[in-house]
C-alpha cells in the first residue's frame, strides 16, 4: 500500500517537475516569476486536444489505441503541434507585453504584474471558448497493472514518468553542452555582461521562452492525459510549480525535477494520511518551509 502512495506521488510529481523546469528556466533568464506559465500549460493541453480530435475525426485510424496505451497516433502529433503553438503563443505574449515593459526598464515587479494580467486573460479566454467542462483526450479505459510491492500504474502513467525523466536529462544536457544552452546560462548570470561578450540577448530570451513553453506543453498534455483537461488545470498547478522551482533552486533543472517529485510525494502522503481536501495546502507549507530554512533551494546558488 505504501508503494502505491509512492507511485502516485512520483507520477503527479513528474508532471509538477516538468512544469517547474519550464518555470525555473524562464525565471532565471527573464528574471521574474511568470504567473502566466500555468496558463501556457492549459493552452497546450487544449491545442493538443483540438489537433488530436480533428485528426481523429478526419482519419479515424489515427485514434486507434497504440499498443498498451490509451491513445493513438493523433495524440503524439497533437503534442508536437502543441509544443510549436505554445512556443509561438509565448513569443506572441512576450512581443505584445513583456518585451515592451522590459524595454521601458521598470521594476521586475511590473513584469510580474503584467504576467498576472496575461494569465487572467489567457485562462478566461479558454473558459470562454471551451467552457469549464472537463475534456479528455480519449475515452478508453485503462486498467492499472501490478508493478512491484503491490503498486499499480497504467501504461500511460509509466510513459509519462519516463518522458519526464528523459526530457529533464535532455534539457540539462542542452543547457550544459550546447552553444544555445551556454548562452542561456550566461544571460541568466549577467545579462549586460553576456551581451558584451557577444551573446545575442534578445535571441536568447526568445529561445528561453520557447524552451519554457515547450516544457509547459509536454506537462499540459501529460496532465491532460493522466487527469483531465480544464481551463483551470494550469492555474491549479501553478503553486506546486513555483514551490518546486524554489525548492529546487531557481535556475537548476535537475533541482526543479527532483523538487517536483518531492512535492508530488508530499501531496500523495497528504492525500493518504490527512485528506484529499488539503492537497492544495501542501505546496504552500513546503514553500514556507523552504523560504524559512533554505531560501536558496536544494541546488541553487547563494545570491545576495
Amino acid at each position, binding site marked *: 500500500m505504501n508503494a502505491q502512495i509512492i507511485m502516485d506521488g512520483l507520477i503527479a510529481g513528474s508532471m509538477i517537475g516538468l512544469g517547474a523546469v519550464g518555470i525555473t528556466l524562464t525565471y532565471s533568464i527573464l528574471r521574474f516569476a511568470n*504567473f502566466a506559465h500555468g496558463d501556457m500549460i492549459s493552452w497546450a493541453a487544449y491545442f493538443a486536444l483540438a489537433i488530436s480530435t480533428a485528426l481523429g475525426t478526419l482519419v479515424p485510424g489515427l485514434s486507434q489505441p497504440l499498443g498498451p496505451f490509451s491513445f493513438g497516433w493523433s495524440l503524439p502529433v497533437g503534442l508536437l503541434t502543441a509544443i510549436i503553438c505554445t512556443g509561438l503563443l509565448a513569443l506572441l505574449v512576450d512581443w505584445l507585453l513583456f518585451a515592451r515593459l522590459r524595454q521601458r526598464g521598470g521594476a521586475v515587479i511590473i513584469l510580474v504584474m503584467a504576467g498576472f494580467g496575461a494569465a487572467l486573460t489567457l485562462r*478566461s479566454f479558454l473558459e470562454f471558448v471551451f*467552457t469549464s467542462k472537463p475534456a479528455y483526450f480519449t475515452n478508453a479505459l485503462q486498467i492499472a497493472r501490478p508493478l512491484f510491492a503491490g503498486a499499480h500504474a497504467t501504461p500511460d502513467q509509466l510513459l509519462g514518468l519516463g518522458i519526464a525523466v528523459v526530457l529533464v536529462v535532455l534539457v540539462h544536457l542542452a543547457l550544459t553542452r550546447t552553444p544555445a544552452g551556454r548562452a542561456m546560462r550566461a544571460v541568466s548570470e549577467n545579462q549586460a555582461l553576456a551581451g558584451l561578450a557577444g551573446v545575442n540577448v534578445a535571441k536568447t530570451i526568445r529561445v528561453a521562452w520557447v524552451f519554457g513553453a515547450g516544457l509547459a506543453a509536454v506537462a499540459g498534455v501529460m496532465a491532460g492525459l493522466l487527469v483531465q483537461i480544464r481551463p483551470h488545470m494550469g492555474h491549479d498547478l501553478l503553486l506546486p510549480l513555483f514551490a518546486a522551482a524554489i525548492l529546487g533552486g531557481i535556475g537548476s533543472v535537475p533541482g526543479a525535477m527532483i523538487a517536483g517529485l518531492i512535492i508530488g510525494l508530499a501531496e500523495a502522503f497528504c492525500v493518504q494520511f490527512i485528506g484529499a481536501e488539503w492537497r492544495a495546502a501542501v505546496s504552500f507549507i513546503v514553500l514556507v518551509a523552504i523560504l524559512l530554512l533554505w531560501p536558496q533551494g536544494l541546488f541553487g546558488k547563494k545570491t545576495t
Partner: protein
Amino acid sequence: MIELVSYGAFFLTLALTFGIMCLGLNVQWGQTGLFNVGVAGFVGIGAYVSALLTTPSVPEHLGGFDLPIVLGWIGAAVAGALASVLLGALTLRLRSDYLAIATFGFAIVVQLAALNLQSITGGPFGISFIPRPFGALAGDPLVFGLLNLGVVSVVTIGVYAALEHLMRSPWGRVLRAIREDEQAAAALGKNATLFRIQAFAVGGAIMGLAGAVQAHFIGYISPEGYVPILTFQVWAMLIVGGSGNNRGAILGAVVVWAFWAASGAIIAAIVPPEEQARASALKIVMIGIAICVVLLLRPRGLLGELKTVSRHIEDGKA
C-alpha cells in the same frame, strides 16, 4: 424613485467596501511596490474573524461570541495585520517576487481552510446571520440603505484620511524613497525590509477591515466569496483608478464596480442562461486585457500619483 435611491445606496455601499480594499492595496503596491496576489485571502480572513466574533453562538461551528460589531471590525484588522506580518517577514528579506508567490499560496490556503475547517468556518455553507449595522431598521429599505451607506462612507473616509496623513508623514516618504531607490534609502539609515513589512501590515489590516465591513453589510459569507477573482477585481480597480493615489483607489473601485455590475446585468438580460458562464468568462478576459493595456499605455491610471507629497517642497515652491 425610492427604489432607485435604495439601489443607488446599495451599489455605492458595496463599491465603497471595494474602495477600502483598494486603499489597503494602494499602501502595499501604490506606495511601497509590494505585489500582493492574495488580496482575497486577507479580505477573507477579516470577514471570517469578524463574523465569528459577532454572530450569536451556534452549535454547528465554533463561536460566535456575540460581541459588538466594532470589536469584530477591530479583530478583523488585527487578523489581517498579523497574517501580513508573518508573510512579509518570511518573504520580504528575499527576492521581491517571492512575496507574490507566497501571497498567491496564502490565498489558496485561506480559501481551503474556509472550505474544509467546518467546525470553525461552517465549511461550504459559510456563516449567516452576521449582524448588520442598524439591523433593527431593516424593515425600511431606504432608511436602512442610507444609514449603511453612511457607516461605510465614514469608514472609507476615515481610512482615506489616515492614509493621506501617513503618506505625507516621514514614514510615507521613506516608503516612497525605498520604492524608488532602495540603496539610497538604505544609505540614509532606513531599514528597507522593516519598512516594507510595516507597510504590508498596514495594507493587510485595511483589507481585513474591508472584508469585515463587507461581510456585515451583506450579512452572509461563504468560501466562494473569497476566490481569486476578488483579487483580480481589486487589482483592476487600483490600476484603473491610479496606483499611488488614494482618491484614485476609491474612484477606480466605483468605476470598475459599476462596469462589473452593469455588464453583469446586461449579460443576465440578453444572454441565455446556459451561455452565461461563458459570457462572464469573457468579462474577465476584458479585465485582464484592461490591466495589461493600462500598464502599457497609461501606467498612472485615471488619477496618477502626486509627484510631491512633502509640504516642505510644496511650501518652498509657493
